[in-house]
């Protein structure tokens, strides 16, 4: 798990860097107004980038949550349920984020 945490972390540095620079520094005055945000998200490249970032950030965050809970010395059985629960939560969070973004741009 450690190596996946490092790989998703490295990917996040790149994806978040692009996300922050484009949203806050390239767009004049940042992406503040509704029309600007919708126009930005309507670009297929941006939609793909934001979706990739959502998947990676959710995976990184939930693996981190698991490793914090593992520090509390839980049983193997609890860990099995924890992994299942976090996987379901991750899928739901990504689906929610993509659905919401799609609702905005369609």
């Amino acid at each position, binding site marked *: 798990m450690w190596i996946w945490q490092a790989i998703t972390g490295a990917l*996040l540095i790149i994806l978040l860097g692009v996300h922050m620079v484009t949203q806050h520094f390239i767009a004049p*005055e*940042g992406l503040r107004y*509704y029309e600007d945000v919708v126009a930005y998200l309507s670009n297929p490249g941006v939609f793909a980038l934001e979706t990739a970032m959502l998947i990676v950030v959710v995976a990184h965050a939930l693996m981190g949550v698991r490793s914090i809970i593992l*520090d509390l010395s839980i049983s193997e059985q609890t860990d099995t349920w924890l992994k299942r629960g976090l996987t379901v939560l991750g899928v739901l969070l990504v689906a929610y984020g993509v659905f919401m*973004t799609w609702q905005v741009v369609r």
Partner: protein
Amino acid sequence: METQSTWQKIWTWIDLRGRREGGIGFILMRLTAIGLVVYLALHLTMISNLARGPEAWDSFIKLVKLPIFMVGDTLLIFGLVYHAINGIRVTVLGLGWGGDHQAALFWGAFVLSVLLTAVMVTAIVAIG
């Protein structure tokens, strides 16, 4: 052998007493991780304002432009930057490099995080 309750384990986990740089770095990493997970949840909730239309979005933006939110932004930026830089430090150490320079690597990561946070906050304030 004495067994610890969950609360005792959590307390041991955040207790800074007697910790060296590696331990302090670990605690800060975990605290920033929890803060960022909370922020992620808020950020996803924020997207729903976009789906509710321009009025909901613009009034939300008006709210977060209040000066008090700059304090939260500064904490968020520091948390993100420290978490990323310390993550690189932990990965480097995990790969077996720099073990003899643990303390210097921690302080380097911490000072760099403070400096980068200052630069980014200054840029955000300058943009307005």
